[in-house]
């Protein structure tokens, strides 16, 4: 019986396991389905990681390396090349791999850190033929950066999420011609700095409020058709542009990979597509915690590390000192807010303040983030600009929740 089993050895799992060790757990197992630890960081060879966490600018593999080094100084056990098939509500973890075959391990606590996967062509239903040459941006990233294959020479990118933007630069540096980046929304889904250093640096045009309306080609992509869309995101006839290209990369969103979570009986949030969590990243099933992109999709790995550290510490607390107690207050997303993490807070379990992470559902100028209980305002936070592509976070002093029962709401007021 392990004190803790961590499912996934990416940035979330690594930080969670290290934190659990630091907080006193001594029998911890990480199960990772890939050959190496590090997860998606291994293919994110660009820099910009670690500015908050390590106060320096690292590439993805270097960021992973720092945590792998830290882990190697602990007694945490690691099984790579091993896939978790099931986590039961009574914390049995079913796993299989070529070395040990099918195994069932029992644990006193489990941290789910499986990350997320990309949405595909099927998820957005692009009309046209079904030739080779349509890749998700992350798959292309793995081909180029890990396997050493360039998936195409003339490229159109649909979606302006960060991976798409990063791949626009990467493909250009490797000698491909990136013709356009096409975004259905009137704003980019990626970080502003990536628009600058990945598109503008290489004069790659960004078409906002446009989408791909047809893929042409029999065996291989030959052309894609791009059209403007109206406010309802419907293509506008007569606005078609045809690009001669051999490759279409899709950067159209990420989905937390929560099949195991659901089967463990954990309550899921349709807004985040991840587990409903308390302030310490505990789920609705006692002893099961989740952190990182499987909980909600982050922009920055630094925040994944911070969140996962809290999950690791909380799992240690749970095993060594028993379940967290106290009534909970629900967090609701009000005007302008798409979701909040956590979704529930137990004031008794918070020392000074708790952080609330959320995204806005459109671009806001100068505004205030307001937290209220019914009509009573608890606190407000000023911001110069809010954008859906950039996750926000506020620290709410727990003493403000005195006398609050039921729920609080986080909302945006433009000023």
């Amino acid at each position, binding site marked *: 019986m392990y004190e803790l089993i961590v499912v996934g050895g990416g940035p979330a799992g690594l930080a969670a396991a290290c934190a659990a060790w630091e907080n006193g757990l001594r029998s911890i197992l990480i199960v990772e389905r890939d050959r190496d630890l590090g997860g998606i960081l291994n293919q994110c060879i660009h820099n910009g990681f670690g500015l908050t966490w390590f106060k320096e600018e690292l590439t993805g593999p270097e960021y992973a390396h720092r945590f792998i080094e830290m882990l190697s100084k602990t007694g945490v056990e690691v099984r790579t090349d091993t896939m978790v098939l099931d986590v039961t509500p009574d914390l049995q973890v079913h796993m299989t791999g070529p070395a040990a075959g099918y195994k069932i391990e029992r644990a006193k606590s489990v941290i789910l850190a499986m990350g997320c996967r990309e949405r595909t062509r099927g998820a957005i239903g692009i009309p046209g033929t079904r030739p080779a040459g349509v890749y998700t941006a992350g798959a292309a990233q793995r081909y180029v950066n890990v396997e050493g294959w360039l998936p195409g020479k003339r490229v159109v990118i649909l979606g302006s999420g960060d991976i798409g933007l990063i791949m626009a630069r990467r493909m250009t540096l490797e000698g491909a011609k990136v013709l356009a980046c096409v975004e259905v929304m009137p704003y980019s889904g990626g970080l502003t700095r990536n628009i600058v250093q990945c598109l503008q640096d290489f004069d790659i045009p960004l078409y906002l409020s446009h989408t791909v309306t047809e893929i042409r080609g029999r065996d291989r992509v030959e052309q894609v058709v791009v059209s403007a869309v109206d406010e309802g995101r419907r293509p506008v006839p007569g606005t078609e542009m045809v690009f001669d290209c051999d490759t279409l990369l899709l950067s159209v969103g990420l989905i937390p990979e929560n099949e195991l979570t659901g089967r463990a009986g954990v309550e899921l949030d349709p807004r985040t597509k991840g587990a409903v969590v308390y302030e310490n990243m505990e789920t609705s099933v006692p002893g099961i915690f989740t952190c990182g992109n499987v909980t909600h999709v982050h922009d920055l790995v630094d925040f994944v590390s911070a969140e996962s550290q809290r999950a690791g510490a909380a799992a240690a607390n749970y095993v060594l000192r028993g379940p967290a107690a106290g009534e909970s207050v629900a967090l609701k997303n009000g005007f302008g807010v798409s979701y909040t993490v956590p979704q529930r807070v137990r004031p008794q379990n918070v020392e000074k303040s708790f952080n609330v992470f959320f995204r806005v559902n459109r671009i806001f100028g100068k505004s205030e983030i307001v937290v209220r209980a019914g009509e009573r305002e608890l606190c407000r936070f000023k911001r110069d600009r809010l954008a859906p592509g*950039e996750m926000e976070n506020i620290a709410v002093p727990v003493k403000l929740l005195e006398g609050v029962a039921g729920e609080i709401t986080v909302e945006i007021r433009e000023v």
Partner: protein
Amino acid sequence: MRELICIVCPRGCHMQVDDGLNVTGNFCPRGAAYAKAELTHPTRVVTSTVRITGASYPRCPVKTAAPVPKEKVFDVMEAIGRVTLSAPVKVGQTVIGDVCGTGVAVVAAREMP
């Protein structure tokens, strides 16, 4: 007056720079330094991969240890493309001592045992 978006960190400050290179709108001093450099001699860190033999993958990620002049980015890519390493490789190991006369080294970014 030039408008500039800072790329130093994910915050992405919207900055204004006047003709005397006075910077406003930056959250931290690194933004001001970036804005001045960007308008006088822009630089970038280049990240890419080199071939590697004897490792579990055929490519090893590398980066320039410091920013290089922006106009040399494609020259640096070409120099990186001519390198083949053999495993084992340590993080931070020098791959090219001085790339394209920039005085900047290219170093390995992943442990490849």
